[in-house]
């Protein structure tokens, strides 16, 4: 019964989505306010019914209702409760439901937080989001219904894929999807603005916090995914340029460009058509990622099961949504003009440079990801495009990006005094060049030019940020001065930016160190034997059999010594999950800020001997810390009082139409 309620809720949500797509938009075009006013309640209803649907599916998992085939294939009575919940989005059908639910939830959030926005704008944004959800709900109901029953009812479920029975991967999809789906808001705002023909600073101002929130989720999702791959897949890598990884990285890059471009459009009214393009791009790439992951057109480490019928549906959906929006863009964008003039040395031009580099990088990755497909389709031969190609392309673009990024925060809008800028940054440049030169020292460079480059860039980012903070606080003193600045309007935006850019520096440092100083070693050991890497001695104490809730583990024990001191005990496992009979490695990691020690257990070679892989991973944590810093920077930026003040002031004012003097476009330095 409960699954039928879920199924029925999905159908109702589809009906509401159709109404939400039609009435507010039509109403805004033919001046029927009552139709436009339907947008908010419809968005509410959609979120509610999708919530019921996801609740019904969760319930089916919790009570082990194996008559639901999705539950039967992805759960088991012995599966721990946490993973029964995360199994809801563990496979294709359920993850689509989560997508649709998040889309509904974002719609409801807009309905709540945009009361001070003109109704017709809200109506159009929600209409666009309704159209998108029509696609997802149809897709689910036609090809991938999570509530489908099966007969005969199996006595036991096939269990969740063991790789997903892990806290990292329980969290990874929801965060990632919140990011993907969140870009639909910026997309909706862009389409609404194109339809309305008005792309102004207010549009940018409204899109901005939504974009930042979506970007924060996506950043977190990618960070968690990378961290999960590192410890769970047992090969110690944190990024492989796999198509699935690229599918999440491309919208992130476009979203990053969008966030920065929106700032320019808001403050200066410039780059309007470019910003709209990026808003369309960020969400289109999110949809493209869905296609790549679920259609099976590319070979990937962790794709969903391939199904051409699903692929065809998503492709048609892509054609409608992306093709339609780009056609609208081609029609309406030529009428967008505006934006003030600015000098070559100005914040606008540097942000434009940053935008173009990010966009070029996005398209490079898109090209590299699709290249094997293109080559195959054109009969040019079967090729693989792997990490060597991507690394080279990435390294071609990112140093320029990082250098620009150091200048950006110190620039003024419209015009910056180049000589003064150089004076301010002189010391930062000298310090970072010196640090870069130290990087050439053989013990540090380890024979790679990338180490001095990475150190230079990280140092440049940090020192230029320090200069920027000092510059900002030059008239303020001590902690009190900092706190008052922090609390001021725009203060958190600024410090959010600082944290985000610091995150980039941390990422560069971590990636540089672990790529050039990481050590890995495959060894065969008998109990009592030891192996040494980078001054750490791993003593193998053998393997014992230990049962888990739904698996049996062979648990190895390693005592790790540095010199004569025992610093830790590592217990990696090799698990066999009982239902799917899959071998899984659970690596054991002793983590630290300057290095991780990582052991993963391989095969039983007989006679107590085991094969195993030992890693020394210097500064690897900094990669994900960098991601967390970026995300936290984004959170800080959206909690800036200047966004809150809108609401507060709204309450003080008369409810409608009180024309206040517009200050948004005025410059204030």
């Amino acid at each position: 019964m409960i699954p039928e309620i879920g199924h029925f809720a999905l159908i109702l949500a589809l009906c509401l989505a159709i109404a939400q797509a039609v009435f507010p938009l039509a109403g805004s075009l033919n001046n029927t306010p009552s139709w436009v006013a339907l947008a908010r309640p419809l968005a509410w209803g959609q979120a509610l019914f999708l919530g019921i649907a996801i609740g019904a599916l969760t319930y089916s998992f919790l009570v082990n209702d194996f008559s639901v085939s999705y539950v039967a294939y992805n759960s088991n009575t012995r599966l721990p409760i946490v993973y029964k919940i995360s199994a809801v989005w563990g496979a294709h059908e359920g993850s689509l439901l989560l997508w649709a639910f998040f889309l509904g939830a974002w719609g409801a959030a807009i309905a709540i937080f945009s009361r001070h926005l003109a109704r017709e704008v809200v109506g159009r944004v929600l209409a666009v989001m309704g159209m998108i959800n029509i696609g997802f709900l149809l897709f689910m109901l036609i090809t991938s219904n999570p509530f489908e029953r099966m007969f005969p009812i199996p006595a036991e479920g096939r269990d969740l894929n063991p790789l997903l029975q892990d806290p990292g991967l329980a969290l990874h999809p929801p965060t990632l999807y919140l990011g993907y789906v969140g870009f639909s808001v910026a997309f909706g705002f862009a389409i609404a603005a194109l339809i309305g023909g008005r792309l102004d600073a207010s549009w940018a101002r409204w899109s901005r916090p939504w974009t930042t929130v979506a970007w924060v989720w996506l950043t977190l999702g990618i960070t968690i995914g990378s961290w999960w791959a590192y410890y769970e897949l047992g090969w110690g890598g944190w990024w492989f340029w796999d198509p699935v990884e690229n599918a999440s990285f491309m919208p992130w890059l476009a979203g990053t460009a969008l966030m920065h471009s929106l700032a320019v459009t808001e403050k200066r009214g410039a780059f309007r058509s470019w910003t709209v393009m990026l808003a369309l791009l960020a969400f289109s790439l999110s949809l493209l990622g869905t296609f790549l992951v679920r259609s099976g057109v590319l070979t990937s480490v962790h794709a969903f099961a391939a199904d051409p019928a699903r692929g065809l549906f998503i492709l048609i959906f892509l054609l409608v949504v992306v093709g339609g929006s780009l056609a609208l863009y081609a029609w309406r964008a030529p009428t967008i003009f505006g934006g003030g003039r600015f000098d070559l040395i100005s914040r606008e031009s540097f942000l434009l440079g940053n935008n173009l580099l990010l966009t070029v990088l996005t398209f490079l990755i898109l090209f590299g990801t699709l290249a094997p497909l293109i080559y195959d389709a054109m009969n040019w031969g079967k090729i693989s495009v792997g990490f060597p190609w991507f690394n080279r392309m990435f390294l071609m673009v990112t140093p320029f990006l990082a250098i620009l990024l150091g200048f950006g925060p110190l620039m003024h809008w419209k015009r910056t005094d180049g000589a003064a800028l150089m004076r301010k940054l002189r010391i930062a440049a000298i310090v970072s060049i010196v640090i870069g030169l130290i990087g050439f020292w053989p013990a540090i460079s380890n024979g790679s030019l990338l180490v001095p480059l990475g150190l230079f860039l990280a140092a440049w980012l940090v020192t230029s940020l320090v200069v920027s903070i000092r510059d900002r606080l030059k008239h303020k003193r001590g902690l009190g001065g900092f706190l008052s600045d922090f609390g001021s309007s725009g203060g958190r935006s600024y410090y959010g930016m600082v944290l985000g850019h610091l995150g980039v520096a941390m990422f560069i440092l971590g990636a540089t160190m672990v790529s050039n100083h990481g050590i890995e070693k495959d060894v065969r050991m008998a109990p009592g034997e030891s192996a040494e890497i980078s001054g750490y001695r791993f003593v193998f104490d053998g393997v014992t059999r230990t049962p888990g809730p739904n698996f049996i583990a062979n648990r190895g024990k390693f005592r790790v010594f540095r010199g004569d001191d025992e610093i830790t005990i590592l217990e990696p496992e090799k698990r066999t999950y009982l239902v799917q009979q899959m071998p899984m490695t659970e690596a054991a990691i002793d983590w630290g800020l300057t290095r991780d020690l990582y052991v993963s257990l391989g095969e039983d070679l007989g006679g107590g001997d085991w094969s195993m892989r030992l890693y020394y991973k210097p500064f690897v944590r900094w990669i994900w810390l960098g991601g967390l810093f970026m995300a936290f920077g984004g959170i800080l930026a959206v909690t800036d009082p200047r966004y809150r003040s809108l609401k507060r002031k709204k309450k003080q004012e008369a409810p409608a139409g009180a024309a206040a003097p517009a200050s948004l476009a005025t410059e204030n330095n």
Partner: protein
Amino acid sequence: MKILKTLVFLGMLLATGMAGATALSSYTFDSKEEEQAFRDFTAELRCLVCQNQSLAESDADLADDLRREVYTMWRQGRPQEEIIDFLVSRYGDFVLYDPPLKPSTYILWFGPFLLFVAGVVVLMRTLKRKNEDREVELTEEDKQRLSELLQDANENQDSKI
């Protein structure tokens, strides 16, 4: 069929043995530098039967055989080009994560530079145009519209991102 379709994430891959990844433990090397060099070399060779894994990682049977061939040639001191030729002449460019530079891959290798250059050209043209533009401030109509949309009070804004 339904079962096949519903099974997700790595089904195939696990069958070919993703877990473990201690592929090189049975080989001996003269030094840890040599071992690292061998690992780096095989990391750029693609396992054919896996979803997307290198010879350095894969535990698949064929990967194991190919790794042994590569190891034997490596220990005989054959140049890397020869080992790569050995694999490519049997399996094609598909085995190389680092695609070779040849006429059919010119687009792959030089396309990005064109894109990069195109980006820089667009940047330069825009900057030049913007530098020459007359100042266009918002019109009164714009401002009116703005305030209607936002219904926002005057607030002190800061220029920071």
